[in-house]
């Protein structure tokens, strides 16, 4: 048989090299993997580990900052792997949402890296805290930056295995117990995600998110997309700890080292929310509309039960675990309401929650050390020992309950207003009630652990360490600045939501010549 006519490879292959600026799209992930590998090799060298890691995280913050600037200036950017053009090759596509999340994740990770310098002892470093942190960041950045849904699954697994490593670091009995529940349930959640990806591939024959967006819009009528969307909601809801699949979170988040809890609270559940927003808002907008009542009910339950759970806890760290959950409820409410206000509010709240929940866990760690206990029955006297640290804590307490003028206020206003606009007054009421209940929960921590005089027998180091205060000040500064000057972030978040709701720029960046 003679060779058929020559094939025009330019349709399937990248023929020119990528512009230098496009490398920014993959650099955060590559940098994390590379520096994680270097840190792994220098694992025994416990003295220089923190310095190297903090330097690496600073570089990561710079890279993510550049990426955010690049994307904010020029719209979504795509880079493809292995010369294959989408939909054949794996694409990394970054739009404003992904870049914003990646940037805030880098801020959190830097704060965590500095906080860990004193919080993690030599044995924790020898067992690889910093390499795990860098690999976790590789997974998180990859999940935020990828444009391919199977790739998203792989990054989920990368961050999951790193989080297992961090969770059992120290291997106390309590940690093993928490890790069992965390590991099994999260693995089942990612497996559910993989099932959904399998069906998605079966229906569309493609895994590229931009390609799926286009094809789903064209062939909505004759495909069982509702089943698929519900599976995604279940999988990501479990990842993000939405009611009723959230009980792995309070069972495990209080067990590891404080800085590990802080990083988890800031990063992991938000990856779930990010994936939910990406899939439900961008890929399946019609299905999101149909599922919106179910989502709203789950959101209200998550908010209320999370806040009530927080009121019922006497351990500060477990209380914070429930606050993470109630925050997820607000984001879910934003996704359920939809539209620029709802989605924008959800994104804004996610970014706020990343900063504030991380800072709150760090606060809890310092407070536990000063008061001598995490138990509200026994702790006390923090205000008498250090007023400055108490002031920082108070800012965070007010911010998490959504009080003005801190960063929690604006996204709650956005979500509540969007809910009222579509007539879901009960959802807006749930948001406000959650703020009230959260205020009670953190107010109790304030009165008992901070105001109440210390017991005479309590022995503790009175002053918070510098390595704890520096990241705390940084994060508090972020929440205060965002609260006082919300305009910059607000406009970015609104255009990010607009890009998600109308993803033609995203699709255009993946397929510059149009979808074939």
């Amino acid at each position: 048989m003679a060779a058929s006519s020559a094939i025009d490879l330019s349709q399937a292959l990248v023929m020119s090299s990528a512009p230098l600026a496009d490398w920014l799209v993959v650099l955060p992930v590559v940098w994390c993997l590379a520096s994680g590998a270097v840190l792994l090799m220098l694992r025994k060298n416990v003295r220089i580990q923190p310095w190297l890691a903090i330097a690496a995280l600073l570089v990561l913050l710079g890279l993510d900052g550049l990426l955010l600037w690049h994307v904010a200036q020029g719209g979504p950017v795509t880079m493809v792997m292995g010369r294959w053009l989408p939909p054949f090759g794996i694409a990394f596509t970054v739009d404003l949402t992904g870049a914003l999340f990646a940037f805030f994740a880098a801020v959190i990770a830097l704060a965590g890296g500095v906080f860990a310098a004193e919080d993690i002892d030599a044995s924790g470093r020898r067992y690889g805290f910093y390499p795990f942190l860098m690999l976790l960041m590789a997974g998180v950045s990859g999940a935020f930056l990828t444009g391919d849904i199977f790739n998203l699954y792989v990054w989920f697994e990368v961050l999951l295995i790193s989080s297992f490593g961090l969770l059992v670091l120290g291997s106390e009995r309590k940690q093993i117990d928490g890790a069992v529940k965390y590991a099994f349930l999260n693995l089942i959640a990612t497996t559910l995600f993989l099932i959904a990806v399998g069906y998605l591939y079966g229906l569309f024959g493609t895994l590229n998110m931009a390609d799926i967006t286009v094809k789903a819009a064209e062939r909505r009528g004759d495909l069982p997309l509702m089943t698929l969307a519900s599976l995604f909601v279940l999988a990501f809801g479990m990842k993000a700890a939405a009611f009723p699949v959230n009980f792995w979170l309070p069972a495990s988040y209080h067990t590891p080292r404080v800085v590990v809890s802080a990083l988890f609270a800031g990063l992991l559940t938000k990856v779930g929310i990010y994936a939910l927003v990406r899939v439900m808002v961008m890929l399946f907008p019609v299905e999101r509309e149909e599922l919106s009542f179910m989502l709203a009910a789950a959101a209200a339950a998550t908010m209320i039960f999370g806040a009530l759970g927080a009121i019922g806890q006497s351990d500060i760290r477990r209380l914070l675990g429930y606050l993470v959950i109630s925050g997820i409820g607000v984001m879910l409410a934003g996704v359920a309401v939809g539209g620029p206000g709802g989605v924008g509010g959800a994104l804004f709240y996610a970014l706020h929650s990343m900063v504030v929940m991380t800072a709150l866990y760090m606060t809890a760690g310092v407070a536990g050390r000063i008061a001598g206990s995490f138990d509200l029955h026994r702790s006390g006297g923090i205000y008498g020992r250090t007023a400055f640290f108490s002031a920082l804590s108070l800012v965070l307490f007010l911010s998490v309950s959504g009080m003005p003028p801190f960063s929690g206020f604006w996204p709650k206003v956005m979500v509540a207003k969007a809910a009222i606009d579509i007539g879901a007054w009960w959802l807006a009421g749930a948001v406000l009630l959650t703020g009230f209940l959260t205020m009670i929960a953190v107010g109790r921590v304030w009165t008992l652990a901070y105001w109440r005089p210390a017991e005479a027998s309590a022995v503790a180091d009175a002053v918070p360490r510098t390595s704890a205060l520096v990241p705390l000040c940084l994060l508090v500064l972020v929440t205060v600045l965002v609260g006082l000057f919300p305009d910059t972030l607000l406009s970015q978040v609104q255009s990010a939501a607009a890009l998600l709701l109308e993803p033609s720029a995203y699709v255009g960046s993946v397929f510059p010549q149009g979808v074939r």
Partner: protein
Amino acid sequence: MEALFSILIGLFFAAAVYLMLSKFLVRILLGVAILGNAVNLLLFTTGRIVREVPPIIPADLDRQMAVTANPLPQALILTAIVISFSFFAFLLVLSYRAFQDLRTDNANEMRVAEPEADGAPPTGY
């Protein structure tokens, strides 16, 4: 052929869910292993099962002349197998360690992180 596979996958899922509903870690582990395999079969079936040639293009041609099997699901399964196997190994070690430390493999009795006698917070000074 796909219908037969669908039934098989359904059986796998049923067995996996049944095992994962147990309170004993070893059974849950077996459930996780079966679940992983069920998903792999599902991915394989989504690529359509055909009795065709492998997608290899002969040296003297520049395109495939016959219908070929779909290589992508196989690549996906390969990734998924590696991941699910490594996770299974991790969970196995974790469960064994939990059994050593907590002296039980009954999830209901694992109450170290969430003790049952955890009282309500104080209501006053």
